[in-house]
């Protein structure tokens, strides 16, 4: 026991003395949450709109007012002829130009038909789809107003309700994603680097010659990173609840249990990487390329897995983060308990067992 304690203390010295790395590890979740939360927002908010209305009448000004009043849009420019449209896009003054027909209100009144052209900057196709859709909705709502009380006896009114995330906040999607990524990064990458560093420095030999049990070496290597991961978990939770206003709808205990399981799995993964490599750079590369990219691309954090080719969908099934993120979403966003994520828990447990088994076996072989 004394062996283990001496060794764990040593690992803490290593981490505490390496101030740069420690700052990176502690600040990374904060920076990522802020980046994803504010800078890399996929939500449509305050999209700049330019308006071309040759005839300024009560219908056009009502629609423009409604557009301007919505949180999605800001009317930033009023232009007077079609030649001005190109420069607007070229200079990135606006993402959307609304072109009203001549005598808009008059046509609407007399023929019951008037046209508005929506010209969108589709360099970001997802955003363009969203904001043109919002604009059409606003126009439709004006029409509704105009018609007044219902005249048509047949009406189908779809009532759309956005469950779990009524405000359609992106944060609900990426908080679980960032959790899945940070844990993996800290546990797997840092653990593997810490073990491989001993090999590279030659101190591993000294440890192997000593009566120190290999399992103690492993335990003391993972303890500090386990603590760090818990700190990061707490940071992300606090930021998400108090800064991003993403509440933990379900049981917090379940969330912690699933997260501990995932941390354990990541540590085992780090151990496995460390048995495969002999240099810190290789360990970093394998963790970075082999673990980070799949998490970013295949876990459903950024790109929906359902749209991927079948082969990639299969591949995504072996990415542990996918299951963890799915479980976190269920508990944190949908507000369900541990019983709702039994499948994920089972898969993560199985993966952990396999990883721990393989890496312990490999670690032992290497000693001989």
């Amino acid at each position, binding site marked *: 026991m004394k062996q283990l304690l001496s060794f764990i203390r040593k690992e803490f010295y290593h981490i505490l003395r390496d101030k740069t790395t420690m700052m990176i590890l502690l600040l990374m979740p904060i920076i990522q949450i802020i980046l994803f939360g504010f800078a890399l927002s996929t939500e449509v908010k305050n999209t700049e709109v330019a308006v071309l209305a040759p005839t300024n009448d009560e219908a056009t000004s009502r629609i423009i007012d409604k557009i301007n009043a919505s949180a999605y849009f800001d009317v930033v420019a009023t232009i007077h002829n079609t030649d001005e449209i190109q420069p607007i896009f070229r200079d990135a003054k606006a993402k959307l130009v609304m072109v009203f027909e001549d005598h808009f209100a008059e046509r609407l009144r007399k023929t019951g038909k008037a046209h508005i052209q929506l010209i969108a900057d589709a360099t970001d196709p997802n955003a363009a789809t969203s904001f043109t859709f919002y604009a059409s909705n606003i126009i439709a709502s004006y029409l509704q107003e105009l018609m007044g009380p219902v005249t048509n006896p047949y009406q189908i009114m779809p009532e759309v309700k956005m469950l779990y995330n009524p405000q359609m906040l992106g944060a609900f999607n990426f908080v679980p994603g960032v959790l899945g990524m940070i844990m993996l990064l800290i546990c797997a990458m840092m653990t593997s680097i810490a073990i491989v560093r001993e090999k590279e420095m030659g101190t591993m030999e*000294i440890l192997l010659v*000593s009566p120190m049990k290999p399992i103690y070496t492993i335990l003391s290597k993972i303890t500090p990173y386990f603590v760090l991961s818990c700190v990061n978990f707490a940071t992300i939770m606090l930021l998400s609840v108090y800064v991003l206003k993403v509440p933990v709808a379900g049981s917090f205990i379940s969330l912690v249990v699933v997260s501990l399981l995932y941390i354990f799995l990541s540590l085992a993964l780090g151990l496995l990487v460390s048995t495969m490599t002999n240099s810190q750079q290789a360990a970093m590369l394998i963790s970075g390329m082999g673990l980070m990219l799949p998490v970013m691309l295949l876990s459903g954090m950024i790109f929906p897995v359902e749209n991927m080719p079948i082969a990639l969908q299969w591949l995504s099934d072996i990415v542990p983060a996918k299951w963890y993120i799915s479980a976190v979403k269920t508990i944190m966003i949908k507000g369900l308990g541990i019983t709702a994520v039994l499948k994920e828990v089972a898969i993560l447990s199985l993966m952990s067992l396999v990883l721990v088994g393989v890496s312990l076996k490999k670690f032992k072989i290497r000693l001989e």
Partner: protein
Amino acid sequence: MNNIPQIKSGKVISAENLTKKFGNFTAVDHISFEVERGEIFGFLGANGAGKTTAMRMLCGLSIPTGGKGIVAGFDIESQTELVKKNIGYMSQKFSLYDDLKVWENIELFGGIYGMKDKEIKEKTDELMKVLNFENERNSLVGSLPLGFKQKLAFSVSILHSPQVVFLDEPTGGVDPITRRQFWELIYEATAKGITVFVTTHYMDEAEYCNRVSIMVDGKIEALDSPINLKKQFNATSMDEVFQQLARKSTRKAD
């Protein structure tokens, strides 16, 4: 009952036809030798001769493919843990942690070898005095000159009073004066009854050993005291002895 007599007869290491094969390659080829308690045993050989592999087997790091070895009274194959408790080891790569302070390194290795806190503290104070390190107690090891580090590493490797200490090229890259001081530490250790098993590339250091073995291509080609070896090979220095033997090597250095 084979394990115990070595202590009585004063033999701390005994190897009998010790062999290690990696596939078709025989790194260590049936070597046999014995080392007496308190002896300084020089283990010489060109790079790739099989020194390190042999040493790793004696330390319990590597399982022999043939033969038998007893170290500190314990079988290197079946009693690895007991062997490890009773030996010290210092490698050619520097063996302390650069980002730990001097006293933290001592505390760590004391803890790993299961020493009591009080004992560690006493030993630390004693070491600081003997090595004249009082001012460096709180320095990070990485900031010390190489010679200091090597002396400290050696002292830490015998902190737990092992029966035998294995030194793998301990003085590589160290200046002659520090090497001299290093050897004084080795003599002090033997005076306390610690057996020293040392590999080196410096032939002047071979002269400091009680007995020297020279390995060529996995086999021990010569084993005797430096004086006898010089007589046997009709040479004026250990360097000449080594040159004559090493020339026979057909193996490429690694």
